[in-house]
């Protein structure tokens, strides 16, 4: 009887110690409030969903000791939709950092709000202007046009040895920003395109532009279009049997873009991007690919990887002791982080990604191979 009581007392004591330890551990966890404000509906919903998935996967893989409070909000595609979402998230309490829309016009609208509230925004927007506003609260985890278009043009000129380019770009801010950087890079190499034309995203029949490309007799096509127009253009070039190599923008690397085309249409097609997760490469990337496919039943792209790395850098900073938005901002601005796609470090203006890769399709499968990295 005495032994039984003694045992009971010991069990009770152990349970008390264990629950106290658990309570202490829970208390020791760093809480990170990290809203995800991305365009899930509207014309950028494909890219926005990738961005969301990347952030959500990183939150699920948060480092030990970090508790993440997060909510996904659809910003749509209007600037006011994005600022309203940000202001609403800020009104709910202390925000540590934000996964912010990859749409450049939305980012430009959110920047003053972030500055006023001193909250860091992490994004995968490629629009050059967002890091040209001297705003210390913006961090871009995707190569900006200055980096990406340098790789785009240098690969075409230095590796493919092409000199006569037809340039086809989108009329949107995205397209015009890319065009500007492509022309700048070509000028540095002493070249000008033999033909250039802009396409509205709603244009379906691109045969007039394809005809003009053929008439200009280029030796390669530089493309800077959104996802569906990229696939449409490549398909129509294949139908016209021009037989020209196409060096496309980052939209081409997205698996849904390649899925719209037959593998044979993709012969001699290359593209720039930050990373091609479906091409694998490292054990960490393979694990990311496996998890992503399991959890989202879709194929990841470079935007998902970029936002995964951005979110993971924020959470790693928190795990290392950054508790406030200010401390996280300092960690993002002042330290480097080895992510899945590359090592990120701010250039002082919030540009974290300084390398790009070129991928090419072999005409047999829809999975590209990484052929070159530009640092």
């Amino acid at each position, binding site marked *: 009887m005495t032994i039984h009581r003694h045992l009971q007392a010991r069990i009770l004591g152990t349970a008390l110690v264990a629950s106290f330890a658990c309570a202490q551990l829970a208390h020791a966890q760093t809480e990170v409030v990290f809203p995800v404000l991305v365009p899930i509906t*509207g014309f950028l*919903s494909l890219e926005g969903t990738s961005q969301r998935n990347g952030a959500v996967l990183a939150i699920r893989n948060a480092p030990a000791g970090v508790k993440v409070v997060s909510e996904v909000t659809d910003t749509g595609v209007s600037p006011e939709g994005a600022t309203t979402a940000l202001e609403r998230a800020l009104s709910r309490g202390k925000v540590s950092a934000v996964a912010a829309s990859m749409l450049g016009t939305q980012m430009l609208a959110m920047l003053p709000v972030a500055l006023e509230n001193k909250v860091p925004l992490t994004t995968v927007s490629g629009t050059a202007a967002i890091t040209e506003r001297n705003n210390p609260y913006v961090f871009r985890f995707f190569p900006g046009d200055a980096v990406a278009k340098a790789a785009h043009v240098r690969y075409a000129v230095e590796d493919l040895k092409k000199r006569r380019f037809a340039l086809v770009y989108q009329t949107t801010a995205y397209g015009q920003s890319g065009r500007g950087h492509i022309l700048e890079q070509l000028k540095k190499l002493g070249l000008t395109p033999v033909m250039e034309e802009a396409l509205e995203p709603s244009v*379906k029949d691109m045969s007039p532009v394809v*005809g003009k490309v053929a008439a200009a007799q280029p030796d390669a096509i530089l493309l800077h279009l959104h*996802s569906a127009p990229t696939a449409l253009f490549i398909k129509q070039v294949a139908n016209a049997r021009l037989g020209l190599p196409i060096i496309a923008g980052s939209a081409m690397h997205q698996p849904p873009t390649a899925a719209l085309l037959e593998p044979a249409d993709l012969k001699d097609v290359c593209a720039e991007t930050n990373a091609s997760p479906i091409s694998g490469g490292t054990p960490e990337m393979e694990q990311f690919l496996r998890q992503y496919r399991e959890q989202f039943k879709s194929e990841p792209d470079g935007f998902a990887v970029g936002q995964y790395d951005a979110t993971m850098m924020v959470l790693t900073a928190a795990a290392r002791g950054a508790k406030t938005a200010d401390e996280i901002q300092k960690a993002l601005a002042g330290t480097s982080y080895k992510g899945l796609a590359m090592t990120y470090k701010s250039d002082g203006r919030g540009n974290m990604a300084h390398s790009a890769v070129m991928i090419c399709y072999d005409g047999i499968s829809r999975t590209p191979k990484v052929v070159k990295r530009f640092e």
Partner: protein
Amino acid sequence: MLSQILLNALALGASYALVALGFVVILNATGAVNFTHGDMVMAGGYVALAVSSATSLPGVAVLALVIVAMALVGFVFSGLAYFPLKSRPPVAIFISTIALGIIFQNSANALFSAEPRKGPPLFADGLITLGDISMPRQALAIIGVAALLILAQHLLLSRTSLGRKLRATAQDREMAAAIGLPVNAMIALTFAMGAALAGAAGMMLSNTFFVTPTDGSNYIVKAYIAVTIGGWGSLAGAVCGALLIALFEVLFPSLPLLIPSLKTLAPWLFTQTASAILLYLGLLAIMFFRPQGLFGETVQRRV
């Protein structure tokens, strides 16, 4: 070169014609603009995608199922967006159709994701080469099937008793009701017909030009312009307006390829962006100088 460009324009115009025709039959029957019509085109693409994924039916059979499914959608749509509001001011119906359009878009986004998708072909993918012209088989199929559907609709409306009832309802609902026609049933049937045509167009466009949840806004603008050019309420005008839009979109920017001297004269003018601007300027000119459209009749108010 010219024949290749004309064939491309004809294939595009044939799809636009189906879109515009569906739009105008509903407009005639109800007097209201159906802003969901573009989203019905998009929905047709996704229905085709769903049917072809779930079955191994040939494209023509998929098209038949899409027409039936979209007719049902149109029927239900009339019960949600039109009949409860038909006695309210027209703006109420405009808004209800806009609201349902947004529901269509977001439902497609939730069900099929935002990724652009490729719908099934009507017959087969690939090219047919006739001399110097290479034409995708799908484009030829679109021209043929669209022509058949337009003819079928023309025969239905002009040669059948049902068609006469539909036309009577479209011309004067009150008079049609006074002579004992089932006006509500005719209007619901018109919505079904309009949605079926939109769905057929959606399937055909989804194979050649893909489909995304946000495509509807582009197609409703095309339908609106086609009907305005052709004549508000004119079925033949809607078809011709659609063909003119496609011809303009494809032929105008291609002119320097046909007449090389234009390339040096004003290269900036013969781009697809400039041609869109000119198309809208032309639309404004038609509205100003011939508001009844190219095929419409001048309407005079009775005093």
